[in-house]
């Protein structure tokens, strides 16, 4: 009979909901760290998460006060936020509280209290006796290729493997008879074990929470792999339930051994009434003070941005007689490069759209044994694009070779390869260059290979995936993208489609540097496929019939922007017409300049580079960083991201936003009902919001929600990192990625009529949740009046920016020479 107090299935479900949901590192994608709380309002979620799991969920009172002193939190904004929340009559009192009151700032979590009682009662060091062994077994079982002698496995999964090993060996993982006999019971249940260990059903679920949350890294990884087994190339069957059973048996085993079989269940030893984990967490004055500070911090920035946008009223970014157009990813790292290109060629136009360019498919490189997803995480593609022709050359490196750990070859390689290592190390420190240990975005696809873009036979499939797109699919795909960004007329001679990726070395989180919209892969394949489709005469013809007339001489050209190195590479440029080849050559010069300027602008945050040097010199140094073993920050990735602009480029073309904005081009006038907008928000909400929140939480609590410093990280089984040999896995972002980040929520800025936007966001429950629960702040710019409307409690209310004047700047890249800290918004004077 199922017990009433403890329902195993229910408890497991709950656990999996709250455990970290980070994929194995090769598939690292940004997501909201506190996804489990997303059904609550942001401020409530923070309170609950903090009280339940002892997370630090915002900056501390002192940090906010420090920001205020540095004028990063503005006085007028703070006053405004206090009044908005507490009313004018309480403003003075609250201001005093915010500045001076001493609050109890301890972060106390409910989690773990039962476990502590347990440890105190038995005086057993659980970490030493149980966890280290558990981690070792788990890591060996899940290992994807570090170990040479693999874990012998049983096809039925984790527990059966251990059971079988126990049977087929003369030693054991367990020390006591009881442990050995328990593991051999095939139908053992969690409840049975808890009966031995705890014996008070009321505590069972809580005990499991305390137990699993004392090593959330491994538990979260197991729960993720259980859900998505194909995230491992070397398939392993495992479930959280199996792991819990093993852990419980190990615990019983440790007690058996320690007390020689003479011990009693916990509830018979002490009386325990731990605080209920899920109980209400009441709002206190301290919480409210932190909320006000946080909002003031956010609006101190938002306000400048909105003030800037208002100033853009009447401007247009549309140009006649375009030289070229370039489509980039919405990624915040593409915002500055677009600005530099536009500055150098006043007649070009740039656009932003999610970097998979509306195409969802799996990609299989030439010679590859697997295919990999290149579209946003939530989508399950139905198509496969295969690379044909020359495969990317994979160079080998003896230092990663298993031979160095071989009984005989190990010694030989020590006395031979060893001296090569000395030379390599010397070379890399004093003159870094590309090597097989680096991840390069250009390795995603060969430079001279071709792709199976078109599908002419619907039977042409592989693994239930259709190889290539049919003509109809191609037409819709192209149409959707160019319509959504508002590029339907005035085509230039060349339309560049530029995906992006990153290059780095000694970087365990390398997929996080690639395109988020391509599931942590470079966007080159998508860009190339899209260009091929758009260049197809039949597609052009169909589009003309739909009223989108792309001149015959216009050609689309796919490329890749390496955001770490600031390099461009273009595919199929030999297919350009002679005339276009010539203008492409000119454009390349512009790109090269723009890239160097961009490198210079980025360099203000780089300690190792003197930003006053010429852009070209700096560019070379930036390239070197990407291949330097000793450089833990090859680029700063999404750090400081805080905006997402959905609208015409004219909204922010004249603003210096310092690479903090995702920007999705969108022309409201082509989409009166908001149908296209819905598609954009469905993608941009979770993708940009996920990135933003992962940065937020990794920044405010780098220890529990982030991965801590990456310097001591040790790669575990190719799936995760831990500190040293015995630690738990560390999900989240390492300190080096987030240290310059300002933890503020994303401000989504949409250009459209408020009522249209309101109707649109309500059409998708999941997307609406991001806004109504304020995990992402939403502001609408009225296209006619440029008034700003803030979304709060389900409706839009007008907001008048407090900032009236913004500073102007002529050459933003010059700021790099003097400024290291976060910059305000500037108007760009041309």
């Amino acid at each position, binding site marked *: 009979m199922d017990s009433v107090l403890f329902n195993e299935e229910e408890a497991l479900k709950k656990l999996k909901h709250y455990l970290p949901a980070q994929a194995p590192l*090769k598939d690292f994608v940004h997501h909201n760290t506190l996804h489990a709380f997303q059904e609550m309002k942001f401020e409530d979620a923070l309170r609950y998460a903090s009280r339940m799991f002892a997370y630090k969920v915002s900056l*501390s009172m002192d940090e906010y006060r420090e920001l205020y002193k540095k004028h990063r939190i503005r006085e007028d904004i703070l006053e405004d936020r206090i009044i908005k929340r507490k009313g004018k009559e309480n403003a003075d009192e609250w201001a005093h509280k915010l500045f001076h009151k001493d609050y109890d*700032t*301890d*972060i106390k979590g409910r989690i773990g209290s039962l476990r502590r009682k347990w440890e105190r009662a038995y005086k057993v060091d659980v*970490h030493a006796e149980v966890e280290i*062994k558990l981690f*070792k077994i788990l890591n060996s079982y899940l290992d*994807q290729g*570090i*170990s*040479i002698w693999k*874990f*012998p*496995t*049983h096809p039925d999964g984790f527990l059966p493997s251990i059971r079988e090993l126990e049977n*087929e*060996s003369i*030693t054991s*993982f367990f020390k006591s008879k009881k442990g050995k006999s328990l593991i051999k019971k095939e139908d053992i249940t969690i409840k049975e074990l808890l009966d031995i260990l705890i014996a008070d059903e009321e505590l069972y679920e809580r005990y499991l929470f305390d137990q699993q949350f*004392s*090593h959330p*890294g491994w538990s979260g990884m197991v729960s993720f792999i259980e859900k998505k087994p194909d995230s491992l*190339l070397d398939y392993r069957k495992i479930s959280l339930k199996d792991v819990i059973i093993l852990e419980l048996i190990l615990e019983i085993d440790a007690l058996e051994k320690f007390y020689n079989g003479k011990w009693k269940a916990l509830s018979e030893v002490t009386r325990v009434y731990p605080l209920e984990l899920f109980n209400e967490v009441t709002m206190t004055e301290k919480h409210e003070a932190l909320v006000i500070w946080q909002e003031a911090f956010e609006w101190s920035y938002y306000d400048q941005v909105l003030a800037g946008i208002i100033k853009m009223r009447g401007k247009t970014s549309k140009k006649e007689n375009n030289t070229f157009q370039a489509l980039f990813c919405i990624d915040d790292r593409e915002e500055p490069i677009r600005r530099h290109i536009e500055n150098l060629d006043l007649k070009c136009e740039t656009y932003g759209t999610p970097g998979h360019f509306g195409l969802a498919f799996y990609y299989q*490189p030439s010679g590859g044994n*697997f295919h990999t997803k290149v579209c946003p995480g939530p989508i399950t593609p139905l198509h496969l694009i295969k690379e044909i022709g020359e495969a990317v050359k994979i160079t080998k490196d003896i*230092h*990663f070779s298993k031979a*160095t*750990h071989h009984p005989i070859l190990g010694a030989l390689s020590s*006395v031979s390869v*060893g*001296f090569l*290592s000395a030379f390599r*190390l*010397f070379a890399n*420190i004093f003159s870094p260059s590309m090597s*097989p*240990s680096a*991840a390069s975005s250009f*390795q995603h696809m060969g430079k001279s290979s071709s792709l199976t873009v078109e599908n002419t036979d619907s039977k042409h499939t592989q693994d239930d995936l259709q190889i290539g797109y049919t003509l109809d699919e191609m037409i819709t795909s192209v149409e959707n993208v160019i319509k959504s960004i508002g590029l339907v007329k005035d085509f230039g001679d060349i339309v560049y489609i530029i995906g992006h990726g990153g290059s780095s*070395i000694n970087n*365990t989180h390398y997929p996080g540097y690639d395109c988020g919209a391509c599931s942590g892969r470079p966007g080159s394949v998508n860009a190339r496929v899209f260009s091929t489709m758009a260049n197809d005469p039949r597609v052009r013809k169909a589009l003309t019939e739909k009223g989108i007339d792309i001149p015959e001489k216009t050609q689309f050209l796919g490329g890749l922007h390496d955001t770490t190195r600031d390099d461009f590479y273009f595919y199929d440029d030999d297919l350009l017409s002679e005339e276009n080849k010539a203008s492409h050559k000119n454009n390349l010069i512009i790109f090269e300049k723009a890239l160097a300027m961009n490198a210079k602008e980025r360099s203000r945050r780089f*300690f190792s580079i003197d930003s006053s040097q010429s852009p070209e010199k700096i560019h070379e140094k930036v390239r070197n960083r990407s291949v330097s073993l*000793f*450089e*833990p920050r090859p680029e700063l990735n999404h750090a400081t991201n805080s905006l997402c602009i959905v609208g015409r480029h004219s909204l922010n073309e004249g603003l210096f936003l310092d690479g903090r904005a995702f920007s999705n081009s969108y022309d409201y006038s082509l989409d009166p009902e908001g149908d296209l907008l819905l598609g954009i928000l469905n993608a941009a909400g979770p993708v940009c919001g996920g990135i933003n929140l992962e940065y937020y939480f990794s920044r405010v609590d780098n*220890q529990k929600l982030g991965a*801590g*410093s990456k310097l*001591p990280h*040790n*790669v575990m089984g190719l799936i995760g990192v831990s*500190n*040293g*040999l*015995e*630690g*738990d896995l560390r999900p989240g972002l390492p300190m080096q990625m987030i*240290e310059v980040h300002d933890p503020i929520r994303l401000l989504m800025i949409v250009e459209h009529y408020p009522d249209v936007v309101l109707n649109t966001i309500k059409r998708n429950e999941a997307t609406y949740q991001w806004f109504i629960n304020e995990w992402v702040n939403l502001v609408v710019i009225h296209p006619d009046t440029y008034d700003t409307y803030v979304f709060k409690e389900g409706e839009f209310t007008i907001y008048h920016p407090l900032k009236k004047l913004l500073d102007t700047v002529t050459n933003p890249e010059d700021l790099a020479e003097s400024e290291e800290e976060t910059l305000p918004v500037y108007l760009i004077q041309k």
Partner: protein
Amino acid sequence: MKDLLYIFVLIPSLGFLINLIVPKKEETILTRVATITMGLQFIATFIFCIFWIINDFPSLYTKELSLFKSESFELFIDFSFDKITAVYLLVGAFLAFLITAYSRNYLHRESGFKRFFNTIMFFYLGFNIIVLSGNLATLYIGWEIAGVSSFLLIGYYRNRYIPVKNAVKIFSVYRLADVALLIAMWAGHHIWHKNIIINQFDNYNSVSEHISEHTSLAILFSICILVAAAVKSAQLPFCSWLPRAMEGPTPSSAIFYSSLSAHLGVLLLLRTYHFWDHLPSIKIAIIVLGATTFIIAITTARIQSSIKGQIAYSAIAQIGLMFIEVALGWHVIALVHFAGNAFLRSYQLLVSPSIITYLIREQFYSFVPKTTPIKKGLINKLRNSIYMLSLKEWNLDEITHQALWNSFKSIGNKFHYISIKTLTFIATVMLFFFFGGWFFKDNFGDICLQILPILLLSWGLLLSIRAFTERKSVQRSILLIVLNNFFIALALVYCENIPILHIGLYLGGVTGSALIGILAIRNLRKTEKKINLAGYQGHCYEYPRTEILFMIGCLGVFGFPVSTSFLGMELMFGYIHPNQIAFLALVSLSLLVNGLAMIRMYARIFLGPHIKSYHESAQRSA
């Protein structure tokens, strides 16, 4: 030319001292000083070696630099230079320079930036002293420096639980090696009747004469050297510390635990080879030890699923082979092997984060998943058992920890019911009583004079074990350790006529250091009410200065060369006669436990997760 040897110690000392006074925030100055120091050292070593080669590899010895001299005892520093030194010095200088250059950017913005560079330079200083040392006393000084800085580097992330726990664990194994070296020095002293210079081993006839005169001492000497070497080089049964030392930033793990530090055991064997070469039993023991370590370590390396663990075990396996090479007299091979292995493993560690990129890419193109089923049958049973044992690292970690830590703990716990107050009271009364008795010692019978010291020492040892398991009072725990030293001194006084100066140096050093420690704790007490020894409290988070003060006190108490206690302890050892084995054992155990107790105290009060939770803190298991 030989006087130039001093500069290899002077350069790193100077760099270390300069950086001590550079303010924390000055990253650029700190790294510049460090890089210039290491660069200079590298260039100096390089040029020196060239001249040395041109001069046809002469063996060089500096004059003895006397630190302390009495009729029966002399402690002096001297340096020597030969092939072994040349290789170790060159490899060390090369790696230290590169790693420092590497860390310049790598450590940027890391809290503890200055601490990192200072500890590395301090370690490097110790390394150079060891490599250049011409006698065991000099080597011991370097050995201690290297040991303490290793402890600090392993526990670099001092507000996390695991690094601190492992640092303390590893320190306890190191302490064993320290004591083994002390005993070896003692044995050497009695074999030669003076503090031996290593080049005396080269005289074949003299060595064999001395050995035949003192066979048991010679064996004891060799065993102690072997224990010290096995500990430092992570040979059986001490293998497990090396992978657990990989807790600091990757470059520090690369330079120390897979290269320089781990190969010091080999150096120790090379240095003493001409001595134990005369003892076939020791040679066989070394070969067997090296071979078994090799087999165990290489299988463990092959099942390791964490990259740093794998590299660590591979390094250990190679060092096992080097032990064999040294024992067989293949010294050139051993030196080449050392250099290659040190370079290879440190580079492998430095690029270890890249393994994901590299292997995943490789797998994507060439990997075909295949399962490794569990096979049945007797042979497979054995295979599976070996797999499981390797997964558990042959339980070596548990075994060493049990022996070094839990055994003392359980003894100490047995005496827990006697309160520390009573214990101190009895001890003090005893001290006075026996001290009084000392004036009449001529009237005591021989047996009495033999039993009394042992009794005193046993009681003293008990005190320090009790201090080691103390969970409440810090001050009383320190007091117990000081008392232990008094007991040792008193026991010695009963056997030997010891000049008051020698006792003064010894007890004065210990007491003075203890006072510094107590002062630090008192200072801390002003603001922190609850300080005990029950668990980690991480007070270095708020009191970094007090922490340094207390650490210096600690080091002084257990005989680190920062106070006269270091000298005193060596002197005291000298007074133990070759026939007083029980005496020797008890004193050694006391020193071992004192070291453990002091470092435990330091770690529990100042290191580990901070007890206050107003800031972010890592999970205990992270």
